């Protein structure tokens, strides 16, 4: 066990964990930020997506020691006009079904709109392909991103 300092959602936390413990489990178990989900453990599904210095990253394979020194944002700490637009669009058209992947979907979508406010279909594909939705809510995810894009 070692101590690591993490910047999460604008606050500094010190955690005492194994250096190889993935950030996902540090967020969920040590910081009680349960909005970020475990889906595959091998960076294939995107359920564990958070922002690290604004970039969407898979946390299930990211050792905590590699996450120090960055600004980490989870679904609980999302803010800004892109986040508001995405969450409003998601609510407006009822994007989620089971909802389990949606934190990850939203983190990827917000990162996309922050970088590319008016994404094309190809931009959406490129940004969202890493996020699996087993309910296949993809039609509504695509629509939600487009609706949000119109409002920012």
């Amino acid at each position: 066990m070692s101590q690591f300092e993490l910047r999460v959602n604008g606050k500094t936390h010190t955690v005492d964990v194994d250096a190889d413990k993935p950030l996902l489990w540090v967020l969920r178990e040590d910081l009680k930020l349960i909005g970020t989900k475990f889906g595959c453990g091998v960076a294939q599904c995107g359920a564990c997506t958070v922002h690290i210095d604004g970039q969407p990253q898979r946390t299930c394979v990211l050792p905590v020691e590699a996450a120090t020194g960055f600004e980490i944002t989870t679904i609980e700490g999302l803010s800004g006009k892109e986040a508001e637009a995405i969450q409003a669009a998601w609510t407006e058209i009822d994007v989620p079904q089971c909802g389990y992947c949606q934190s990850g979907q939203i983190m990827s979508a917000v990162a996309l709109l922050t970088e590319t406010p008016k994404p094309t279909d190809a931009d959406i594909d490129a940004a969202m392909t890493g996020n699996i939705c087993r309910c296949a809510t993809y039609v509504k995810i695509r629509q939600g991103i487009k609706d949000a894009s119109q409002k920012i």
Partner: protein
Amino acid sequence: MTTHLTPRNPKLTAEHDVATPGGPASAGSPTIADSMAAAFAAKHAAAPSAAILANPNRRTVLQGAASIGGGLLIGLQLPGKARAESGAAAVIKGNGTAGTFAPNAFVRIAPDSTVTVLIKHIEFGQGTYTGLSTLVADELDADWAQMRAEHAPANDALYKNFAFGLQGTGGSTAIANAHEQMRKAGAAAKAMLVEAAATAWGVPAGEITVSKGQLKHPGSGKVGTFGEFADAAAALTPPSDVKLKTPDQFTLIGTDVPKLDTKSKTTGTATFTLDVVRDGMLTVLLARPPRFGAKPKSVDDTEALKVNGVVDVKTLPRGIAVYAKDFWAAKKGRDALVIEWANEGTEARSSAQLIAEYREKAKSPGLIARNDGDVAGTLDKADRKVEAEYVFPFLAHAPMEPLDYVIEKSQDGKIEVWGGAQFPTADQGAIAQILGVRPEDVTVNTMLAGGSFGRRATPVADIASEAATAFKARGTEPLKIVWTREDDIQNGYYRPLTVHRLAASLDGDGNITAWDETIATQSIVKGTAFEMMMKDGIDPTTVEGAKDLPYNIPNTRVSVHNMEAGIPPLWWRAVGHTHTAYATEVFLDELLEATGKDPVQARLDMLGDKHPRLTGVLTAAAKAADWGSPMPEGRARGVSLHKSFNSYVAQIAEVSEGDEAGIPKVHKMWCAIDCGLAVNPNVIKAQMEGGLGYGLGHALYGEINIDNGTVTEANFDSYRSLRINEMPDVEVVIVPSDEAPTGVGEPATPPAPAAVANAWATLTGKRVRQLPFSRTGDA
């Protein structure tokens, strides 16, 4: 886009029709529903602590009470004790204390006027929270903003699924079995609120109106909220009968009310089983055998116990459990185990061997499920005969939330669990039996589940049982069992590998004169609590969608070979329809192509006037797609039509050759559904999109291959899932209907692969006879 046409005159039957819903695996006949219930009860009658027989005294009391409503009004006529017990459920989220009006098992009205509906069907994405609450809210004349939903506790008497005879979710039955029950629950609550207001205001009840959660007496100008009269209404006797609205009086049914669970699922605050934390809780991972059913020969846990955070290692019937302070320690501990497995008696074959054996068997007829006319004679005499074989792989459900369960024992010896309980009382009974407590001492908290697709509905309550077994082996701390994705893909239950062999004869005019379909697969229900569903040796879930082929063919035979394999089979979204829809609709298309007939018109011709709902959806889909109109260069369309779970779906797919050889790019799909009264068109549309996406993804990429008894695939890298760039545009048409509502969770899944395969054949001339399109497995 959605084209939604408002039903003209929805006919909601006055009597509850138990015959309507299908079982979790059924073709929707009352026989199946009844026999499932009987089968389950019979099976568990031999196991005294099983849920179905739990607390017979209370059950008898409630059944007696329920009979007042002709078997329907469960919860509306409860004796005082039962009402108090069911009222306890409202305490779950802290609004069930003094002042809460609990008129029946489903409605809780708090002093602040929030209305909480207890949902007897687990919410895992298909929309039960919203759909069932809509039915209550409409009859209650509530404002949608005051509605809340939470899962009902485990209780067969109060919350059974009328299609199964026990509490459970499956077979797309939630709305179908509960719609009238929910409406009556809402109407009864409203009548009592009105009576309370009438007494308080000194006016006749008949002069009080209710709209959007407000009670009004126009004559005196008095107005009030539900909350104001909750206390007074609670003292009243529930009405013995209630009058339901006529469809023209609906205010919420048929509209796109916002889903009740969207906000929490958009902010990361929705709580799934994985998110449950108890004081001192340990995380448990099991090392499971590479071969199904293998037992450990030797276990060396020396290194595992050295892992920081690992607390204990125990050998359980289903594997070696590592108990640790967190997930990562449990995983590292599990990785450090050295286990030798005893494979004696386990399945050692590979998919290729199973397929070869099934193919051989399918060459001759099996147990007869349907036999019209003289199939053999007609085929023998035929001038023109077409034959084809279709092979379907094992498939894993792979719900997004890996399987998990939380269990805790309180100071007084009672057990509390949290899980995605698809059969809550089965979980309760299994846990009680393992831990040697009474079922009523096991409190089941059904959690929002991150998908299921059938996986959480094992007849043996495998996930709950595993949690209980792990708890018993240590007996102290609360535990959370977590399956990794690899566990889920490699150690689960599967849509069984299936072979269909079809033969048909054509006359000189291109009419199909005989149709012979032979199916070789494992039975899903054989050897389970649902075995009594089998009739004449045939599992109805094997033949559903094939046995009831609707086309006018004078000689039709469908037969079955029950194959044995040591790979656990289970219902997988739409169950038998997942292979029967493909085999029948692709083979039919092949016959129509051989005779130069238009796939849409020929289907309509063969349906005649006997299947108006099938012709209705097919016509609607063809119209939406403008079937026959020109397409961009390099594209082709295909159609399919299939009834499942008493809903009717037609789909048309438009495809081109994609970037990957042999895998179509699906540009667009049109989907027409007739599911009776459309309770929430937006939810139906979502289920059509998601359901066809689920079918499409597995048809393109999904395969579980068995090699020497062991699953080859391990995670989403090898068990490939549909991704957003592979999802077509979807246009949904909801065909107006005046029939009672039927299922939408499954019916969009079966036709999708067939529509795509038929389009692909038109485009490329290639009939895909073994799925998936991306097949890597051997045959």
